[in-house]
């Protein structure tokens, strides 16, 4: 699907420290997902009614934005490995912009709910919805900052090392992976 020169020995793509963080984050999200599922099971009608108030087109757009951004990050790493640092910088920048679009879109959605007077304490559904989405929102925000930082460094005389690039990429893909589960779970199921 994508051509990245594979290595002979199994190697972790990115820093071990980042992977420890990723596992921890996945664990947190995973527990919350399972808690959501359990709560859903107990209050099906409440959750269905809540889901009906969410905007699926906006969330679909967001999914595409994140997936595309992930693909761009992969391109950036390919470019960086080939030594095309400026090109990599643009790929990173593109991914960051898509991430920003996600944030903007999501913010509008959250703003809309807040205008309607909905908060974490409104109902069990909104607690989960707002809590999960906001927690993920913060992760995207962090990811965008990281990608922007990587992009900036690509245009500087001393480009970032591959370890940093792989690590940034791995974090971003984790954010993507979480959303890929979160979106169908909260919006569609």
């Amino acid at each position, binding site marked *: 699907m994508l051509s990245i020169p594979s290595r002979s*020995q*199994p*190697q*972790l793509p*990115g*820093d*071990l*420290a*980042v992977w420890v*963080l990723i596992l921890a984050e996945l664990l947190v999200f995973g527990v919350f997902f399972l808690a959501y599922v359990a709560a859903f099971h107990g209050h099906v009608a409440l959750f269905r009614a809540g889901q009906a108030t969410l905007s699926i087109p906006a969330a679909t757009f967001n999914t595409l934005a994140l997936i595309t951004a992930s693909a761009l990050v992969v391109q950036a790493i390919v470019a960086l490995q080939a030594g095309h640092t400026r090109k990599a910088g643009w790929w990173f920048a593109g991914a960051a912009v898509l991430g920003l679009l996600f944030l903007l879109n999501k913010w509008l959605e959250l703003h809309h709910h807040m205008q309607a007077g909905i*908060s*974490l*304490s409104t109902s069990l559904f909104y607690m989960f919805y707002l809590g999960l989405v*906001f*927690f993920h929102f*913060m992760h995207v925000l*962090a990811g965008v900052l990281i990608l922007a930082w990587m992009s900036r460094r690509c245009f500087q005389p001393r480009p970032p090392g591959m*370890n*940093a690039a792989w*690590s940034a990429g791995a974090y971003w893909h984790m954010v993507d992976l979480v959303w890929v589960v979160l979106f169908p779970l909260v919006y569609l199921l």
Partner: protein
Amino acid sequence: MSEVFTKSMARNIYYGGSVFFILLFLALTFDTMGTLPEQDNRAAITPQVALGKKVWEENNCIGCHTLLGEGAYFAPELGNVYKRFGNSTEAIKAFIKSRPVNGVPGRRSMPQFNLTEEELEAIAQFLKYSSEIDTQDWPPNIQG
């Protein structure tokens, strides 16, 4: 199994992760502060209740009792004592007043604090206010 593990990355995660979760905690605190008026029974706080809290603190009641489950575990929970005593401030006052100065042989006994009538009324009102805080249905039963 080979892997890269750098100190700078570990440091970035430490600082980044801390800032991230501190901000998240502050955001949650902000939300909590907005929600509290609906459940912390602040409308019931009168000068008398304020005096009651001061009496509560200056006699170190928390050194034996729990209040909403926090404190020492030597004497009964008092967050719901107003209800346990049949919704009566008089019963609370009578109990505090009746403590023997030299205790009860072999048994635990609350000290005699020699509170004035005003202080007694204040502490009873404070405990009444405490019992009406929305604590998510805690404690599980009237025994606290």
